Each structure stands twice: as C-alpha cells, then as structure tokens.
C-alpha cells in the first residue's frame, strides 16, 4: 500500500511536497495518531494479521464453549469408551444433509477389547442449532441451543462423536472446547498478574535506578538462572489436595506468573531508562508534575504499545507452563478440564498407538502458541511506528 510505504519511509521524496496528491498523502501521515500509524504498520505484516484472526477465533471459543460443545463434557459412559472419531457424511445423495452412521460397540471375543462398527443402514441426521444439555450464556442466561446436535437422547447408539471419546467415554470435541476456555483464560490471567509485577518492579528499577535497580536486576538474574519446571512442580505439589477446582486454578495461575514476570520487567525497565531523559519527561517534571503523574500520564502511554507486544509474547510460555504442569498431574486436576488435563490421557504410548485421537489436544496447543508468537512479533514491529 503506497500510503503505508510513505509512512514507513520518512526520507521518501513525496514528503517534501510539490505534487498535490503526494502532499495530501503526507498530510494524512502527519495528522495520523500514533495508534493509526501502528495499525498501518501492523497491517503490512500479513502473517501477524492472520495470527490475530486465529487468536480472535480462539477467544470466541472461550466465550462460546458451551454453544460449540454438543455434549456435557463430564458425562461419562462406559458403553462408549475410546470410540474413534466418527466420519461425517455431508451429503445425502445430492442434498446437503449431514449425517453420521450409527455405531455399535461389540466386544472382540479374542482380545476382549471393545471394537466399534459403523452401521451403514442407520443414518443419524445432524441438526444445526439443536437442543442439548442446559448451560448459561456468560454464566447468566440459561440456554439449551448448541451449534450442532442430534435428535433424541444421549443413548450410545444415536449420538455423534466428531473427535471420538476418551477412556471414560466422554466426548473429546466438547471437552476440547471447555479445555480451551480454561487453558486460554489461565494464560490471560497469569500474564495479567505477571504484567502488574513486571510493570511495578521494572518501573521502579528503570525510574529510580541506583540501588533499587541493582537489587531488582540481580533478583531477575537469579530467577532466570533457576530451572523453572522443578520449582513449579514443587510448588504445585504443595497445594492441598482438598482444594476446589477454582482455588487450584488461581493458585496455579499465581505460581506460573510469579516466575514469569522477569521478561516483562526487563522490557519496562528498558523503556523507562530510554525515556527518563527525554525532553517531554524532563519538562513534565519541571512544570511540577508529581512523580505519579509523570509516570502514568506522560511516560506509560508512550510505551503502552511495547508492553502490549511483550505481553503477547509472554502468553505462549504461560500456556505451555499450564499444559506441562497439568500433563504431569500437578496442575489442574480432573474434573477440571484443560489442554494439559486432556493430554494426560495420552501419556502412555501403548494407549496412543491404539487410540491416536487422544493426541488431538496437542493441535490447539501448538496452533495457539504459534499464533501468539507471530502476533507478538507483528505487534513488536508495529509498536514503534516512527
């Protein structure tokens, strides 16, 4: 986009004026706000824009997990344990009418394992916006509509399992939706806590310098040279067994963020150091602004974008930490559902070899981490549009 190219190259000749059209374009850039310039810059990074869409999609799942799930994620049924994903037939003849075949579980007389066979005569139509289990929209409004569903009850023969079931016969797709909600919000909460710690400590370090700076920098160096996973494991294992899901959830968030704030503090400190001597900060101080006002009204807004970028880049680490801890059985514990809890079922190679679909929860983990990384990269490049 020509307009953006001008924005990126202040030395380009069109800025010198002369040509009326170029002049107008240059005018646009001069009056554009910082955020507008950043947006133009960000838009150029195509991969980052695509990643932003993916991330947005993930958070839509977080909000609409109940609607997208079609089965109660905790409803177990021994009759349909480890059922493979069902194939969806999208067309019935030439008509668009998705359906699945009914599945019958039989016990293999030789191995005593349950095997499932599709029954080609039985067609179960998939209904859109069907009624299913009851939930509350945003925790408030009771509702029963789901994106897809089938008629009738939850009898093993007549329901759909898009991604198969786990050992307890629970629907993997629905559990994945709820797991996404937990894993992504824990990352977001953890990063928020880290941000508060990072901004306060990094800010103190960069603004005052001297003794405080030295101490905080040494603490960061010490924290960064400690292997984190054993520490997390130790702290997480010390959580009382009788705590509720919610308590464990917040405790894990706290543990992850306590050890994850160092990078954010480093970025904030760097910005403070760079800005302390800037003219506008000096003049703010000279006209008698209080320290609080100098920091929060004059300094913080000018490096807000850097903080946002650093936060986005810190999120994947949070997601991986939660997943690792839960995978080990030290993070969230069933009946809580998260990506890590789901992957726990895939710990054993023998199980995975027989039921490879249990590894599917690894896909959203990887996609989310890649998307956040690219998005953060794009934001970081756009953070300084001048």
């Amino acid at each position, binding site marked *: 986009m020509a307009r953006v190219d001008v924005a990126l190259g202040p030395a380009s000749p069109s800025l010198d004026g002369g040509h009326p059209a170029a002049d107008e374009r240059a005018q646009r850039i001069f009056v554009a706000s910082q955020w507008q310039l950043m947006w133009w810059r960000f838009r150029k990074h195509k991969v980052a824009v695509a990643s932003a869409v993916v991330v947005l999609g993930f958070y839509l799942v977080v909000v609409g997990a109940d609607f997208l799930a079609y089965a109660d994620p905790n409803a177990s049924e021994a009759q349909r344990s480890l059922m493979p994903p069902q194939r969806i037939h999208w067309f019935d003849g030439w008509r668009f009418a998705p359906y699945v075949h009914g599945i019958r579980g039989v016990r293999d007389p030789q191995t005593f394992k349950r095997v499932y066979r599709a029954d080609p005569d039985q067609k179960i139509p998939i209904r859109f916006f069907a009624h299913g289990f009851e939930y509350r929209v945003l925790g408030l409004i009771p509702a029963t509509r789901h994106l897809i569903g089938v008629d009738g009850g939850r009898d093993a023969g007549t329901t759909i399992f898009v991604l198969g079931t786990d050992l307890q016969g629970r629907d993997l797709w629905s559990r994945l939706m709820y797991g996404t909600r937990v894993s992504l919000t824990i990352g977001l909460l953890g990063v928020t806590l880290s941000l508060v710690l990072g901004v306060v400590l990094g800010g103190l370090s960069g603004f005052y310098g001297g003794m405080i700076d030295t101490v905080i920098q040494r603490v960061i160096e010490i924290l960064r040279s400690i292997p984190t996973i*054993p520490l997390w494991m*130790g702290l997480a294992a010390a959580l009382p067994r009788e705590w509720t899901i919610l308590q464990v959830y917040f405790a894990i968030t706290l543990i992850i963020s306590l050890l994850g704030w160092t990078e954010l503090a480093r970025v904030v400190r760097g910005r403070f150091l760079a800005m302390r001597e800037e003219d506008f900060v000096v003049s703010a101080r000279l006209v008698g602004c209080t320290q609080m006002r100098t920091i929060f009204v004059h300094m913080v807004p000018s490096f807000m974008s850097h903080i946002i970028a650093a936060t986005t880049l810190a999120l994947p680490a949070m997601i991986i930490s939660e997943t690792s801890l839960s995978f080990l059985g030290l993070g969230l514990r069933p009946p809580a559902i998260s990506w890590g809890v789901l992957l726990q079922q895939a710990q054993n190679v023998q199980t995975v070899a027989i039921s490879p679909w249990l590894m599917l929860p690894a896909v959203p983990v990887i996609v989310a981490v890649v998307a956040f990384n690219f998005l953060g990269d794009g934001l970081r490049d756009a953070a300084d549009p001048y």
Partner: protein
Amino acid sequence: MLTYIGRRAVLAIFTVWAISVLSFAIIQLPPGDYVTSYIAQMASMGSVVTDEEAANLRIQYGLGQPVYVQYFKWMRLIAQGNFGMSMEWRRPVTEVIGERLWLTVVVSVAALVLTWALALPIGIYSAVRQYSVADYLATFVGFIGLAVPNFLLALVLLYLGFVLFNAHIGGLFSPELQDAPWSPAKVWDLLKHLPIPALILGLAGTAQQIRIMRANLLDELRKPYVVTARSKGLPERTVILKYPVRVALNPFASTIGYTLPYIVSGSIIVSLVLGLPTVGPLLLKALIAQDMFLAGTIVLLLGIMTVIGTLISDVLLVWIDPRIRLEET
C-alpha cells in the same frame, strides 16, 4: 577479568542460596511434617513408631523449632553430606538419587552440545545465503521448534517410532544392559541412545540460537571490514569464518547461561515421557508421594548443577570475548 569472574561467582553464590531457600520452602509447604508422614507411612505398613522414636526424630531434624533454625539445621546436615532420608524408599536420599543425577548431567550436556553443533553452522549458512530455500527451511523448523513444547515433541516421536518402526525409542539403555555394571559396552549403548533425547531437549534452544546467530552475522556482513577483506582477494570462506563469524559469536555465546536452565527444566518432563532414568521421574514420584526431603534435595541439586554450568559458561565467555576481559566495572 578477575573482577568480572568474581562478580559472577558472588552472584552464583546468591543464586544457590535463593535456590536453597526455595527448596526448603518446598519441603515445608505441605501440611504436617516429616515425622507425621513417617508415622503414617509406618502405620500403613503395620509397624508402630513409639513416641520416644518420634521425639528423637523431631530433635534430629529440629522440627518444632522456628523455621529459620530448621533451615540452618538442614543446611548443616547438607554440609555434612546428609540430605535426609527418603520416606518412600526408606534409604538415604543420596543413595536413591545416586547415578540418576549424573545421567541428568549427561543428557543436559549432550543437549547443549548438540544445540551448539547444529545452531552454529545452520545460523552461519542462513545468514550467508539469506532468503535461500535452506534459509526459509531453517526459519520454519526454528519456529516449529520454538512453538512445540518439548514433551509433546517427545510424545509425537515416541508415537511415530512405535507405529512406523514398531520400536521403542525411549530410555537411555537397552533392556539387557539396564542393570549391568558400567563397562565400555554400556557406555557405547548410552551414546547410541543419547541423540534422540538430546535432539528433543535441544530443539527449542537450537531454534533460538539459529535466529540469534543469523541476525548477528547479518549485521556484521554489511560492515566495511568485510568488504576490505574480500577486496584483498581472500577466499570467501576465509572472509566469512575469520572475521564476521568471530565477532558474531560473542552475543551468541552469552545466551548459553539462559539455555542451560531451560534444558535442565525440559529434561525433567521429557524424561518422564521417554522413560529416561534421570532425576525427573524420581522428582515427580517424590512430589506425588509428598516425599519432601527427596523432592527438595532434587530441586536443590538441579539448581546447583545449573548454576555451576552457567558459571563455567561465563568463564568461557570471558575467554572468547576480549571486550568483557577488558571491561573495568
């Protein structure tokens, strides 16, 4: 130079102290103390601990005294080489950990060496041939390496090995040599099993190092001294390897201190997936059984090990980078 190393050493001592406090906290956090869990343990096996024995144990470990006194008693025991008893194994912690700690060191060092051995040539290549197919490939593999948590990578490789080759790629020894005493054959067996865990552990670090090396070298390649070297008629290989690579190596080397804790961290969880006989599975078992002396000791030893490794890398860095050597502060 000495001041620099001295400063790093002081920082290392502080780090070890911080790790010891954290490990102690891990031991202290769960409700009850060592003796109550010991009594419960014995009761579940049908034997009874008399009040007198319990009191003696409490005195030995200084339980019931203020926390800082307990911490100093623990430190004093450790200084004497006594890390306490493992409740679960009912043997001294040092005996339980035994050679697992050394195998952890071996795996971590192998991962570190592999990281460097891969990142250095690949980084140089993708900088010199910027935007070539191989460069894009390296960038792509790098991103995958950064994005996939290493335990998932281990799981996927294990699965592929199982399905495609019907082979179990985990472990560090062949089954027949598992419990055999050390011999050249066993060492060779260990070396044969090392590459896969080392690769899994090192991939994320390698990806990062390739990006650092590539960026550093790209900055250097545009400098006038490179043009000078080339116009003198030096062969291209000498131009690249003798001047810009040497300069680009320094920031590359300084990241080793952050790579090591990362690898040690990863080795815990990867060992669990691959079934490696390192301290990883032991730590998890100890934590689940609330065998806190064992768990605390493992965390402490892992931390100390990492600090020593980082210190060695700092000294190496001083050796290759004259700018640090000459720095006065």
